[in-house]
C-alpha cells in the first residue's frame, strides 16, 4: 500500500449514474483483483473507498455511482490532468487456488466492478462464468470486460436485457450445468444473502466482497467492521473486503 499523487486521465459516464475514473500512477502498482483505493476529494474530509476495476501498469480505473455530494463532486469537478491523492492498493482481494478452474462470478450494481478485475485477472487460464445483474438495459456497462470469460449472462430486473430476474437466479439456473469450483460475488447485501441461501448445502466455496462506510481504509480506526459468524468483528478494509461467504453475517 502506498500514498500517491495520481493524475486523472479520464472521468466520464459509462451508464446511467455510473462514472469511470482512470488515473495514471508514476510507476506501475501491482494490484490483486478485489483490492480497492481510497480516493481523496478536495473539500471532503473522508476519502472514498472505490474498488479497482482495471489495473494496467500505470493506468488504474475505478468506477463509482453518483450517490451523494462526494461522488457528484468527483463527477463534476475533477477533470483530466488534475491531481488526485490516492492510497492503494488496499485490502485482501479475490485469490483463487490453482485447483479452482471453473469460476462463477455473480455481481450486481456497482459490485460488478471488482468482479471485472477478477475476470481480467483470471480469464486467461480459467473458465469464467459471469452472471451480472442490472436494473435495466440502460444501466448495463462494460459488457466487453464482463464478457472476457467463457460465458456472460446478463440479468435485468425488468427483463429489458438478458435474463428476466436477478443475477443469483440467473446463476442458479445454470449452476448444475456449470459446476463451478468456486463462486466470487459482490453486490447489494440482499443479493449476497440470496446467494448464501442458494448455495447452502452445495459445498461450493464462495467469496464475497463487502462494502462499508470507512474512515482510514487501512485497519486502524475500526469504523468499517462487519460481524463474523463466530461472533468476532472483522475490519472490512483490512481483513476484507473479500471474505468467505460463511465467515461473515450478511
Amino acid at each position, binding site marked *: *500500500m*502506498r*500514498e500517491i499523487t495520481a493524475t486523472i486521465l479520464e472521468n466520464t459516464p459509462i451508464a446511467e449514474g455510473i462514472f469511470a475514473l482512470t488515473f495514471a500512477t508514476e510507476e506501475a502498482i501491482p494490484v490483486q483483483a478485489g483490492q480497492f483505493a481510497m480516493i*481523496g476529494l478536495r*473539500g*471532503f*474530509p*473522508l*476519502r472514498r473507498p472505490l474498488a479497482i476495476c482495471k489495473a494496467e501498469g500505470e493506468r488504474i480505473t475505478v468506477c463509482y455511482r453518483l450517490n451523494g455530494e*462526494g461522488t457528484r463532486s468527483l463527477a463534476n469537478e475533477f477533470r483530466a490532468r488534475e491531481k488526485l*491523492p490516492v*492510497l492503494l492498493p488496499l485490502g485482501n482481494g479475490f485469490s483463487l487456488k490453482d485447483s479452482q478452474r471453473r469460476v462463477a462470478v455473480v455481481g450486481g450494481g456497482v459490485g460488478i466492478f471488482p468482479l471485472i478485475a477478477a475476470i481480467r485477472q483470471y480469464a486467461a487460464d480459467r473458465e469464467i462464468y459471469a452472471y451480472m445483474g442490472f436494473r435495466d438495459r440502460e444501466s448495463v456497462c462494460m459488457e466487453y470486460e464482463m464478457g472476457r470469460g467463457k460465458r456472460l449472462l446478463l440479468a435485468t430486473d425488468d427483463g429489458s436485457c438478458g435474463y428476466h430476474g436477478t443475477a443469483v437466479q440467473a446463476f442458479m439456473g445454470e449452476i448444475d450445468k456449470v459446476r463451478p469450483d468456486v463462486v466470487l460475488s459482490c453486490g447489494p447485501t440482499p443479493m449476497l444473502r440470496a446467494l448464501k441461501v442458494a448455495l447452502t448445502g452445495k459445498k461450493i466455496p464462495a467469496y464475497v466482497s463487502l462494502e*462499508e*462506510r*470507512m*474512515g*482510514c*481504509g*487501512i*485497519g*486502524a*480506526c*475500526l*469504523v*468499517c*467492521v*462487519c460481524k463474523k459468524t463466530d461472533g468476532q*468483528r472483522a475490519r472490512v478494509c*483490512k481483513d476484507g473486503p473479500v471474505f468467505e461467504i460463511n465467515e461473515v453475517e450478511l
Partner: protein
Amino acid sequence: MADLSVALCGVTLKNPVIPASGTFGFGREFNELYDISCLGAVATKGLTLAPRAGNPVPRIAEGRGVILNAVGLQNPGAEYFIEHDLAWLRSKTRVIANVAGSTLRDYGEICALLDGKTDFIELNISCPNVRCGGMAFGIRPESVKEVTKIARENLQKTPLIVKLSPNVENIAKNAAAAEEGGADCISLINTFTGLAVDIRRRRPILANNTGGVSGAGIRPIAVRMVYEASRAVSVPVIGMGGITCAEDAIEFLMAGATAVQVGTQNFTDALACPKIIEGLNEWCDFYGIGRIASLTGTLQLNG
C-alpha cells in the same frame, strides 16, 4: 533545523505531534506507510479492562469540514494491548495509553494495570458514543475531579493526562477540576456530540444515532477552549480539534498547548502527521524560531 522537542510532565517528546486516540489504532497500520518513530508520541485507541465489541455500523458520517463517528470504544482490552502491541509501540515512540471505563472502579483498575508500563495515561472521560462510556464523568466539574482522583490514586509512576469533553458548560472549570483531582496534564478537546440525517430515509446516518463531531470545522472552537483551559491551570495542555496542517498546530501552541494531537486528518491524508512535523520545522526556520516550545501560550489578545 529548529528544535521541535517539547517536555511534557518531565518526559521529552521529539516533537509536539501526536496522532489522536481512535484514529491510529496502536500504530501498526500507519507504520506500513511511514516509520512512526518520527512521531512525538502515539495516543492509543481507547482501552477498557474487558474487550469491547463497539457499536453497530454505520459508524461514520461526513458533513462539511467535519465527520461524525460512533465507533463505541471497540478494543481488544488493555491486557491484550499490553501483551501484543505495547513493547513494539514503545520501541517506536512515546506511548499515551488512552483508557476508558464505565464506573469509577474501572478507571482505578485500568490505571493500576497500566501504571509504569506506558509513558502517559490519557483518561478518556469524554467519549460521547457509549452509554456510561466516560462522558458522564466528563461533564460536571465535581465528577471530573472525582474520576481524576481515582485514577491518580492508582498511578505511582505514570503521568496522568485527563482528556476533556467540549460538551460542557464551562471548560475552564472542568480543566481546573482535573488539575485539583491530580491531573499532570490535560488534553482537549474530544468530539462534540452531533447528529447527521439521511434525509431520504428520515433517519440518522449513524446506527448509534448520535456521534462525535471532529475535523477542520470545529477548530476555532477547539482553539478557544484550549486558550480558556490553559489559562485556568498550571499543568501543561495538549491541544486538538481539527488540525490539518502545521499552521493549525501553531494556533494551538500559541493558544496555550505544549503539544498537539491530530485525529481526523489522518483519514483525509494518511501522511498528515509526518507532513505536519515537517511543516512545523519549516515554519520555525522561516520565522527564526529556534525552539518550538517557546511558542506555547504566546497568544496576546487584542486590547
